[in-house]
C-alpha cells in the first residue's frame, strides 16, 4: 500500500496538480463570496459587510456544496482518468502493486485534493466573514461548523463516487460527463422533492360572492408511506436546502450517514471494478 500511496502522491505534487487545486480553490472561494454578496445583498454591501449575518455564511457554504463537486469531477478525470488513459496504471500492476491498493491510493489522492480544495475555499469564506477589516468580528457558532462539516463529508462522497466512475467507464470524458451531470440532477431532484413535500395537506377556498369558505383536501399532497420514503430521500441526498438551513434539522445526521455510506459502498464497488477490469 505504501508504494501505491507514494506513487499517487508523487504524481499529485510533481504534476503541479497540488498547485492547481490550491489556485482554483482560492478562486472558487472568492467567486462564491462575490456571487453571494452581489446576488443577495447588492453591490453596496461590499463596502459595508458589517451587515452580514450568519445567513451570509450559510449561503456561501451552500455555494461551496454546489461549486466544489464540479472541481472535484474535473480533478478526478485529470488525475485518475489520465492514469487509465496513459495506461500508466499498467506500470503499477506490472510491478506487483495490488489493484486494490492502486484504487485506494488513487482515492486517497482525490480525497486529499478534495479536502485541500474544501479547506482553501471555506478558509477564504471564513476569513472574509471573520476578519474583514470594516466590521467587527462575527461569531462562528456550532450551526455554521455543523453545516461546514456536512459539506466536507458530502464533497468526500462526491470524490469517492467520481473515482468509481473513472474506473467504471473506459472513456474518461464519458465518466467526466456523468460526474458533472449527477450534480444538477441531484439539485433538480431535491427541488422537486422539496416542492412535493411542501404541498399543503388541505387548502382553504373562499367564495368571493358569499364570502364563505371551505377546506378542500389537496390532491397533490403526498402522504403515508410515500411521504416517508420521499422525506428519507430528501434528507439523505446532498442538496435539500430548506432542511439544510433549519437549525436542529435531522438532515445533517442523515446526510452525513448517507455520505459515509456512499464512500464505503463506492469504494467497495471500485475495488471490485478494478479487480475485474481488463487493462488495455
Amino acid at each position, binding site marked *: 500500500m*505504501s*508504494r501505491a500511496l*507514494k*506513487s499517487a502522491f*508523487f*504524481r499529485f505534487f*510533481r*504534476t503541479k496538480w497540488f498547485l492547481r487545486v490550491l489556485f482554483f480553490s482560492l478562486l472558487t472561494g472568492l467567486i462564491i463570496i462575490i456571487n453571494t454578496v452581489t446576488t443577495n445583498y447588492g453591490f453596496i454591501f461590499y463596502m459595508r459587510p458589517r451587515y452580514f449575518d450568519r445567513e451570509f455564511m450559510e449561503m456561501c457554504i451552500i455555494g461551496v456544496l454546489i461549486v466544489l463537486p464540479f472541481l472535484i469531477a474535473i480533478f478526478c478525470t485529470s488525475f485518475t482518468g*489520465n492514469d487509465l488513459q*496513459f*495506461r*500508466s*496504471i*499498467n*506500470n*503499477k*500492476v*506490472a*510491478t*506487483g*502493486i*495490488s489493484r486494490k491498493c492502486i484504487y485506494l491510493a488513487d482515492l486517497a489522492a482525490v480525497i486529499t485534493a478534495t479536502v485541500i480544495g474544501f479547506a482553501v475555499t471555506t478558509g477564504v469564506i471564513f476569513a472574509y466573514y471573520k476578519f474583514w477589516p470594516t466590521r467587527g468580528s462575527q461569531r462562528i457558532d456550532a450551526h455554521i461548523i455543523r453545516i461546514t462539516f456536512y459539506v466536507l463529508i458530502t464533497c468526500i462522497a462526491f470524490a469517492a463516487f467520481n473515482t468509481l466512475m473513472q474506473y467504471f467507464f473506459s472513456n474518461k470524458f464519458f465518466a467526466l460527463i456523468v460526474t458533472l451531470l449527477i450534480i444538477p440532477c441531484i439539485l433538480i431532484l431535491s427541488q422537486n422533492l422539496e416542492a412535493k413535500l411542501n404541498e399543503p395537506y388541505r387548502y382553504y377556498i373562499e367564495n368571493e360572492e358569499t364570502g364563505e369558505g371551505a377546506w378542500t383536501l389537496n390532491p397533490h399532497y403526498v402522504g403515508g408511506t410515500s411521504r416517508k420514503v420521499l422525506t428519507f430521500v430528501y434528507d439523505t441526498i446532498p442538496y435539500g436546502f430548506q432542511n439544510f438551513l433549519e437549525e436542529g434539522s435531522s438532515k445533517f445526521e442523515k446526510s452525513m450517514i448517507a455520505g459515509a455510506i456512499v464512500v464505503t459502498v463506492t469504494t467497495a464497488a471500485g475495488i471490485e471494478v478494478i479487480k475485474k477490469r*481488463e*487493462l*488495455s
Partner: protein
Amino acid sequence: MENVLSIKDLCKDYGKFHVLKSVNLDIPKESIFGLVGRNGAGKTTLMRIITGLAEPTSGTYSIGGISSKDKKILSVRRRMGSIIESPAIYKNLNAYDNVKLQYINLGMTSFDSIPGLLELVDLQGTGRKKAGKFSLGMRQRLGIAVALCGNPDILVLDEPINGLDPQGIIQMREILLRINREKHTTILISSHILEELSKLATHYAFIEKGEILQTLSAHDLMGRVRKASRLIVSSTELICPVFDREGIEYKVENEETIDIFTDVTATRIVSLANEADVEVVSISDNNESLEGYFMNLVAKREGIS
C-alpha cells in the same frame, strides 16, 4: 536450458470468441524470444496476461518458477518490465520523473541509477522536457527505460518498434541487444516487422488464431528455411524447360528473375543457361525469410484445417 517463464494450457475467451487456445510456451533464460503472428493472432492478449493486465480464462503460467495462482506472483512481477502496445508513460512528466515514479512503484529508495538508465536509452539530455513533447522514438525509449527500472530479469515488449523511423529501429535494436548481452535480461518480443525481429531473436514462437503453431530456436530455424539462389537472366521463359529437364526445383518471380531451390553450383547454372542461349546477369543467395517461413507455416495449417 532453464526457463524463466513457462506457460501451460493457457486459454482466454471473450464471450464465445476464443482468443487463446491452450497455449503452451517455455521462454529460456537470457533468450530473446520472438513472438510471431498476424494481427489478432493473440500475441498482445498473451503478453497482457503474462504481465497481469488480464486474467486467463483457464490455464497457468509461472514466472521464475512461481505460479500465477500463487500470491507470491505479485512480488515476482517486480522482476518483470513491460511495454504493451505503446509505452505507458505520463506525458505531463519529464523523462527523469517518469523513471523515478517507476522506481517508487517498485519500492526503490535510491534514485542514483536513473541518469545511467536514461543514458542507456539515449535520453540523458532531455532535461525538463515533458514526455508529451517527445518524438515517438523518444517515447518508445522512455518506455524501455521505465520497463528496465529495477533491473528486471524479463522484459515483455509488444511491438516496441511500431511507428519508428529506420534510425529509431536501429537504435532500438542496439539497445535491446545491449540489454540482453550486458544485463542478461530475457526478452519476450513481438513485432510485425519480421525482418527486424530476425536480427534480434534467439528463439521463436509462431502463433496463429490463438494457437502456437511452432516454437524453435533461431539456429533450428536457419536449418529449416528453404535455401535459394536468385538468378537474374535475360529470359526465364527459355531457361525453364532446361531446368524442368534437369529436375531442378524453381520458382519464377518475373520475366527476368527466378529462384532455384535445388542445390546447384553457379558453374552448372551458367552452363545450363548457355545451353538455353540465355544470358546470366547475376546469381545471389536468396534464402527464405522469416516472413516466408511463417507464411508457409500458416498456409500449411490452413491447408490442414
